[in-house]
């Protein structure tokens, strides 16, 4: 028989649980106190229609804007075309800055945009963040119930609770990071959050599946050992899967450009936290749940 060296993951679980609790508390505090830096998708802002006399593309407009104020780099910039048939005489761009401007500030910006003509200057609304939040809350609740029921049927209810707990852990910490560092929070971040929750759930279930299998081999009193062995059994898979997913999202973060950065950042953080939580949160909390059931 071969033997692998076993790493003691669950022995140190107290420290990691404390670490996780601290991270969750900091995140909740930051979300409550600082809130989010909502991007133009949600918050709305000021829309300026610029007219360029010469041929230009979006990236040139973006660099002009960020030269005026680095805050403007995240502006939403669109090229506008006339509807049909008409020849393009001047190039128009719609630039939306995630700030509401008026008076002096507006005049200053117009004067700074000397190379362009300014066609219109308007405030635009964002997507309603509260509406999205309300709908998302319902979706999250229903998802939690369905996943709990499925896992309770296929595993035990304790596994379901563990999975939900680790999902909440991942979601809260990732959102906390967005709040703490005031990284622009836009629609794409929502997609990234959902992605990481799917990823983390997947990761957790794989470990749980092995625990379920090993529980048949070990005695119930050895629950901690069973769980530790299971984590070690699937460790190769955990490392390889995390690494490959990490590569894809990290490349997106490195080379995806500034517009995609919040999205790629959420994914990158998410892969790390999702992997951590399936080893140090989802599995160790099972020990408590399974023991307390006896």
């Amino acid at each position, binding site marked *: 028989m*071969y*033997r*692998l*060296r076993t790493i003691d993951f669950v022995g140190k679980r107290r420290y990691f649980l404390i670490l996780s609790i601290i991270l969750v508390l900091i995140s909740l505090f930051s979300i409550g106190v600082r809130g989010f830096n909502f991007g133009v998708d949600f918050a*709305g802002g000021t829309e300026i229609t610029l007219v360029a006399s010469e041929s230009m*593309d*979006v990236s040139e407009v*973006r660099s002009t804007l960020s030269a005026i104020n680095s805050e403007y780099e995240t502006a939403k910039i*669109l*090229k*506008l*075309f006339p*509807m049909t048939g008409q020849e393009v005489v001047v190039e128009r761009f*719609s630039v939306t800055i995630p700030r509401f401007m008026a008076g002096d500030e507006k005049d200053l910006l117009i004067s700074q945009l000397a190379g362009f003509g300014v066609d219109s200057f308007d*405030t*635009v*609304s964002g*997507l309603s963040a509260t509406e999205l939040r309300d*709908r998302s809350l*319902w*979706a999250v609740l*229903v*998802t939690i119930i*369905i*996943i709990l029921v*499925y896992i309770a049927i296929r*595993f035990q209810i304790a596994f379901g609770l563990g*999975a939900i707990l680790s999902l909440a852990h991942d979601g809260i910490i990732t959102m906390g990071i967005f709040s703490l560092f005031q990284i622009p929070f836009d*629609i794409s971040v*929502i*997609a*990234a959050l*959902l*992605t990481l*929750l*799917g*990823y983390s*759930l*997947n990761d957790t*279930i*794989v470990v749980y599946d092995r625990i379920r299998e090993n529980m048949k081999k070990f005695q119930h009193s050895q629950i901690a050992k069973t769980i530790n062995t299971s984590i070690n059994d*699937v460790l*190769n*898979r955990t490392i*390889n*899967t995390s*690494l*490959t*997913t990490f*590569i*894809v999202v990290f*490349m*997106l973060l490195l*080379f*995806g*450009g500034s*517009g*995609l950065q919040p*999205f790629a950042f959420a*994914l990158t953080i998410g892969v790390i936290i999702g992997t951590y939580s399936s080893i140090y949160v989802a599995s160790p909390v099972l020990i408590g749940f399974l023991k307390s059931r006896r």
Partner: protein
Amino acid sequence: MKADRIRLAFVILIIGAALLALFWPDASKTYDNWVEGLFGNIRLGLDIRGGSRLDYSLSVPADATKPIDEIANEVVVVVRQRLDAAGYTEAGITRVGVGALSRIRVEIPGVDDPSVAERLVGRQGTLYFGEILETEQSETQPRPKVGIQYRDAIWLRSKDFAGPATTWYLILPYVRIGSQRVYLDGSKVTDARAEVDTQRGGFKINLAFDREGTEMFARITANFVQQQLPIILDDLVLVAPVVQNAIREGRAEISGRFTGQESMELAALIRSGNLPAELIKEEERTLGPTLGMDIVTASLIAGLFGLIIVLVYMVVYYRIMGLIADIALVYNTFLLLGVMSAGQFILTLPGIAGIILTIGTTVDGNIIVFERIREEMRSGKTTLNAITGGYAKAFSTILDSNITTILAAFVLFYMGTGPIKGFANTLIIGVVGSMFVTLVVSRLLLNAFHHKIEHGFYAKVETKAGGQ
């Protein structure tokens, strides 16, 4: 093995269909760059491809009691519902300007046909059941009738006014029952759905009323047996059926032999209710990608780069098995893109996030199987037995981990809005695909190339794990 031969035929058939859907050239389109040219059959969202922008100003009725800002917000909600109901979930609706200068902006992906969206946005959506006083065939609107009973009546055309002479109806905007006036309108409709009309051909619209509406409709139909009861939408008589008997179930059917598109649009209009103000189109423009082409190109290159590293990593780590995983991964990616083009789903940035997650689950499924096969080999099984045993053990893992993801994705699909739906779409297709490739495609390849799999290499215990 005969089973494998059938599987092989199946696998080839599926990918063939997917590739056909993806790459079948559509001569009617022109493309601005290589990205669009290559994936021309995939409908790209506003953020990646751009689309049309329609700006509307509001004409608020003079007797409106609410402030214009509130009305504008209501308009946004109604327009959103209409476009959602008609399948334009990726459209963006925003308010521009404040107060009396408020405008409603609608952005629709693609520039193929903004006219459909225009029909949906601009219409009032006022539905009611009326009473026909007179009917006339005419090319122009007949003269108004004089008389006390005609005081509220107006001449309205039938919706099919294609021919030179059409039917004009003199309509009362309410139904008289005895001395009572009954107003049955769209506000009492709880649901409207387009359905195939099996009796008359074409499509029909099924209406469901709320409690009050059900009661009204029962009373009206009881009093109008063997008489026409017209249904009017936006000053056009949609249909004027003869009532056969009293209907008490609170359901009505508008069977005007509509086309599928027409019935879907009408159902969407009726379901989302009236617009609280009239919309006047001010401006119409074509948009570049809202993310910016610079960002789209950069992210595609970054994504491809990441994918290539993953492919190489798998071959380095798992050798021949890694190559099989790579084939499975590429297979699933094209399968996903093929289904997206065939199903006319719109690909947006959140959709790309779904694809990334799909890449993850596909690689993961293969890794789970490979690690199980290695465990089986270490316990002394031959390669072929190890493959069978590994799959038997990995099956529950793959099933449970993917089913939980699919369940979550379904909730998002039904409860989410716009871009979230797009994400759920790609995720469901991708995860189902990843189960298929892991359980069928990879297995087929593993069985076929089992003699190429070096037993000694895979059975070896990892040095980093410190074997004894």
